[in-house]
């Protein structure tokens, strides 16, 4: 696949805190759905600690990676390899030579400028686990920020943590332009003094600092939106966990989200991954494949799944 600059692609990132929730599976499956619809897609594996998207597609680990972009200045389009699926290319992060903390913010911005010039309709970026600010900054640069959770308390706990951190990075990154870059960190550093114990109190404190801060926070709250995917559910009652998480994010933290869909548990998925077979292609008529198609549609439209409660 030749990737040359034509027009700006839409960028989707997948994050969500906890490892093992199925982010890479979801991302590669959504990518396949888009590609099958005739859209051009590039998957980027930015899980710098453990890039393995190629396994989900059943191909060998590409020999070229983002390292070549940083170290040898190879143009980004030349690093996109064939994914084995029509309309879809793959670009992987470095595995050894680049430590996750090694890239500076400016390098990341540069990378993003080049990513935006890639020739594709959609660019899907897999971020890997964790709530490190490096991961979060990449997450925030997307047009659509997607999170994947499973119906387990740890995954949900990590999601809240991830979203709260992401929101503060979102605020902090925009404060630089106002010369207020350290306001949030200082407030948190001196939290005992200001009697700040949690996210909401920190938000209230910041809003109370000045009219400008209040406006910034309110603007940032309104343009922050994540798209929630609930993976690996075991019963139909668990479908509602997505609605519940969405509700909590809004009512407790004031954070907007859309619940775009769920995927049921299917033991065949792990078997496919172990056999290095793409599930979407091996079982296109399965219930999970249909659910993934449905949530991809909802992502495209930016709308919620219609649950019957």
């Amino acid at each position: 696949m030749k990737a040359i600059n034509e027009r700006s692609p839409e960028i989707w990132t997948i994050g969500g805190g906890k490892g093992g929730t199925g982010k890479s599976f979801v991302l590669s499956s959504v990518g396949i759905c888009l590609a099958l619809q005739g859209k051009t897609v590039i998957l980027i594996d930015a899980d710098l600690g453990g890039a393995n998207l190629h396994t989900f597609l059943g191909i060998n680990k590409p020999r070229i990676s983002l390292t070549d972009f940083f170290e040898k200045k190879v143009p980004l389009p030349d690093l996109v390899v064939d994914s084995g699926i029509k309309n879809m290319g793959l670009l992987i992060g470095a595995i050894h030579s680049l430590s996750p903390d090694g890239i500076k913010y400016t390098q990341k911005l540069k990378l993003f400028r080049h990513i935006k010039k890639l020739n594709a309709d959609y660019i899907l970026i897999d971020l890997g686990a964790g709530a490190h600010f490096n991961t979060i900054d990449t997450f925030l640069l997307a047009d659509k920020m997607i999170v994947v959770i499973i119906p387990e308390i740890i995954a949900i706990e990590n999601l809240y943590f991830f979203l709260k951190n992401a929101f503060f990075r979102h605020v902090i990154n925009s404060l630089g332009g106002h010369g207020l870059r350290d306001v949030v960190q200082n407030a948190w550093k001196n939290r005992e003094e200001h009697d700040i114990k949690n996210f909401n109190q920190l938000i209230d404190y910041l809003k109370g600092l000045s009219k400008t801060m209040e406006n910034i926070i309110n603007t940032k709250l309104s343009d922050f939106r994540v798209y929630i995917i609930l993976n690996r559910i075991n019963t139909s009652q668990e479908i509602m966990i997505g609605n519940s998480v969405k509700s909590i994010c809004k009512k407790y933290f004031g954070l907007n989200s859309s619940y775009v869909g769920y995927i049921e548990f299917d033991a065949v998925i792990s078997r496919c991954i172990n056999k290095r077979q793409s599930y979407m292609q091996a079982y296109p008529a399965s219930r999970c494949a249909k659910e993934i198609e449905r949530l991809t549609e909802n992502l495209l439209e930016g709308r919620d799944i219609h649950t019957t409660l």
Partner: protein
Amino acid sequence: MSGKDYSKYLETLELPSGASLSEIRKAYQHLKALYSRESIVTLPIEDEISAEVKRQILRQIEEAYQGLLVSFEKEEDTLENEMISRPAMKNYEQTSVELTTFTGQALRKIRERLNIDLQDIALSTRVQTQYLNDIELENFEALPPEAYTRGFVISYAEYLSLDSKKVVDDYMSRYSAWKDEHEKKM
């Protein structure tokens, strides 16, 4: 109620505009349970949210629900003038509180007044639609053994926000009478 209130109430219940009475009721029940019980969704942030905040959210949910019910009552009143005389929603709820006999027929009437489908109840309670239908028809022969039927009736009553103990005691008294009769014949 102004259009602004209407939108605000729907937003509180996290519903799209044009939501049906049945959807409103379900959203209300879901949110009320979410903010008053512990679950894997609320436990992780249990210590961050004060009791006061929770109470306030529950108050808003309640206010939104009652406000939306009123708007549906008004619609019903208009219907009432045009068509047959039907008691307004509130009267009906009043009636169900005062009721002491819960025959299958009475239960069906309450359900229909609340604009709830058997499928909705089946989805939420995991009781098969066929059994729910048999409960309403008092088709005891088709129902599973007593302990199961009892559980089904409780789920059904809870879904309609009825006093499940009152309902199940009354309902099962007829089931037992039928069972005794049935066993005598054998």
